[in-house]
């Protein structure tokens, strides 16, 4: 074949060398071009701190703790309860609002680095960032609705109460009357139908259950969204309890898996801010710290501000059904 080819060998070799070098140079040069090619808004936080957001129903009225408990409170005997979801901290970042009757969710007494053993509810104080109604012994908990395995969202990731064992989880052995690890827990699980990740809402911020479906990347709980109430019983979200877990869809790889305070900057990159509210910011909020219920000024919560004043955001809580005269059906 080569005898028909009238390009001389050395010339051909030089050409190939030149072509190879040019391609290599282009590749290296292309890498350095990355910061010009990537949109400027990328990797820049949408806001500096987590937003303080008031939870509203689809009609624009603030929701109250008693409405949530009436509407969606799940107990050990519940077969089905409405799913409540709102976007937080950014748009398209669904968060579950779950109310559990007859239980006080308490702070885990192990540190995040020492495994994920369950902490049974006891006499401890309610967990930081939940709303606990002592009159009815009910806990209201908000956890991220973005699965920590591969980012599936509601309705694929969904809370199934104690009396409802989803078909997909039966395939991996869960039974209503099972024994040990086969038993569907009393208060059920947040179960992901994409690949079978399981999270136990009773465990609060340390909710990863049975080690999840895949290897290490799934060994993370659903991040807990911090909740507080005001004097009118309205509900506010004011941050993420990053001591347990952080929203992993926004972490940059590699080197992105940081926990703690630094996580805010990473979390809030890429996306759209939730809408601002025209309501006035409450002067004080009631929240559970690790020890007890306390009244705090919103300015002490380290939420997003502009020129020294707190910006109040709003986010809509939607449900899959209308019940008890509450018209909350909608899309998040």
């Amino acid at each position: 074949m080569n005898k028909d080819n009238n390009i001389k060998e050395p010339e051909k070799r030089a050409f190939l060398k030149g072509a190879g070098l040019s391609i290599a140079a282009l590749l290296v040069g292309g890498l350095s071009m990355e910061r010009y090619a990537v949109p400027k808004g990328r990797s820049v936080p949408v806001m500096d701190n987590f937003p303080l957001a008031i939870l509203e129903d689809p009609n624009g009225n603030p929701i109250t703790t008693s409405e949530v408990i009436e509407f969606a409170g799940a107990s050990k005997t519940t077969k089905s309860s409405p799913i409540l979801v709102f976007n937080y901290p950014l748009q398209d970042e669904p968060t579950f609002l779950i109310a559990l009757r007859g239980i006080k969710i308490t702070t885990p007494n192990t540190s995040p680095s020492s495994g994920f053993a369950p902490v049974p509810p006891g006499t401890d104080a309610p967990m930081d960032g939940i709303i606990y109604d002592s009159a009815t012994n009910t806990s209201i908990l908000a956890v991220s609705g973005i699965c920590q395995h591969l980012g599936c969202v509601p309705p694929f990731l969904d809370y199934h109460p104690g009396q409802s064992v989803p078909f997909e989880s039966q395939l991996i052995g869960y039974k209503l009357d099972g024994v040990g690890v086969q038993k569907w827990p009393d208060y059920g699980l947040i179960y992901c139908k994409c690949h079978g990740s399981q999270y136990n809402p009773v465990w609060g911020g340390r909710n990863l259950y049975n080690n999840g479906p895949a290897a290490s990347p799934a060994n993370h709980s659903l991040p807990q969204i911090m909740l507080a109430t005001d004097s009118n019983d309205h509900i506010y979200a004011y941050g993420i309890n990053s001591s347990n877990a952080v929203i992993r869809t926004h972490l940059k790889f590699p080197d992105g898996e940081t926990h703690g305070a630094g996580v805010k900057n990473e979390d809030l990159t890429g996306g759209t801010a939730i809408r601002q509210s025209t309501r006035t910011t409450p002067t004080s909020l009631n929240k559970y710290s690790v020890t007890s219920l306390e009244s705090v000024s919103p300015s002490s919560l380290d939420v997003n501000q502009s020129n020294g004043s707190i910006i109040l955001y709003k986010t809509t809580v939607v449900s899959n059904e209308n019940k008890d005269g509450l018209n909350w059906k909608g899309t998040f």
Partner: protein
Amino acid sequence: MEKTEENNYNITDLMKEEKDLPEGTYKLGFKSVTKKGYRIDEWTGAWVATALIYQIVTGIILFFYYSQVDPYASTQYIINNVPFGHIILTSHLYMAYTMIGLVYFHMMRQWFVGSYKGKFRWLQWILGVFLFLLTVLTAILGYMLANTAIAMAALHIGLLFMQRSVIGRILPGALINWIEAIIVGNYTTTATFSHLLALHVAVLSTLMLAIFAAHFMLFERSGLASEKVEKGKMIPWFPTNLLYAVFSAIILIGIVLIFSATFPQTLTLAYGSLAYGTFPVPDWYITSVYKLMDVAGYGLSTGGVPLIIGILIFMLIIPFIDRYHKKGVLERPWITAFGIYLLIGISVMTIWGYSQPGLTQTRLLTEYMWWAITLVSFLPVYAMRFAKKDGDFNGD
């Protein structure tokens, strides 16, 4: 069994005129073939090309009405308000399914026949593997465009696959950031859909069309792998070949249209909707990949993703590692056996992924399954080869 032709690795020869033509003449495409060239299995590529052209035509019509600002509502508008919108959208979907199925069929046919050998067919095969990848990627992007819940789950999963797997761990962070920015921009909803739309209708599809043109011209240059040019036996390209192509295209489009009219596509749950009950499963051409991530049983980084990259690299280099000098299925035993292995593996993964999407497998079951498939694909091929040689020997 006939011997294979030699590969020609000097691609500058492509620029030269063909020897059987008068000096100074160049000829592009449209060769005449013998009667044997009209056998139906020689036309698998023509059907894929038909599907591609149909997708372009219907895609342009859909592009007139689709809006990336309001993806789900504009898809509903196409279904409910655009004249013939529902059947165009459905047939665009079904033709995409058909196209992927035909690409598999076309590819495996060439694999078993060994028609990636000789002349420039090695290059044609490599371009074909890229076309296969582009077809599947374009399909996945198209499936995301409607902003259904399953589509957004697929987008999240895709992005996280890239970050979590070897791709994200080995490639420099800047490059991953760049790839993500290409797919979703700065991740706002509008930016995401603008990017997905541009990639689907312009970038990947244009790339596919360009590579297809090169793939097709190489075919016209190398000719059919299974026949020799014989003077006096060639049937002129016009009108026989043209009419044959048009008729087979009409039949294929007709079948797809009948299916589209009988089973019109229903749009699944919009992203952001909440519902209990049963959920859509990913499209069938993704479920095999999806299931592999479970079934490999070794996690994403060490299991599924490297496995898929490995299979793709293997497919790219197959014209060079196939050292058998003869054509024919039993003359190239381990290539044939591996082809069967892939066929069974992909089918099993697809059906399994479709029927039990959220079920994690144990490593033991995984091992049993892969070894069983290996046995089922390799043993019969070598046994038949032995039997055939034995028969040939006794016959002599």
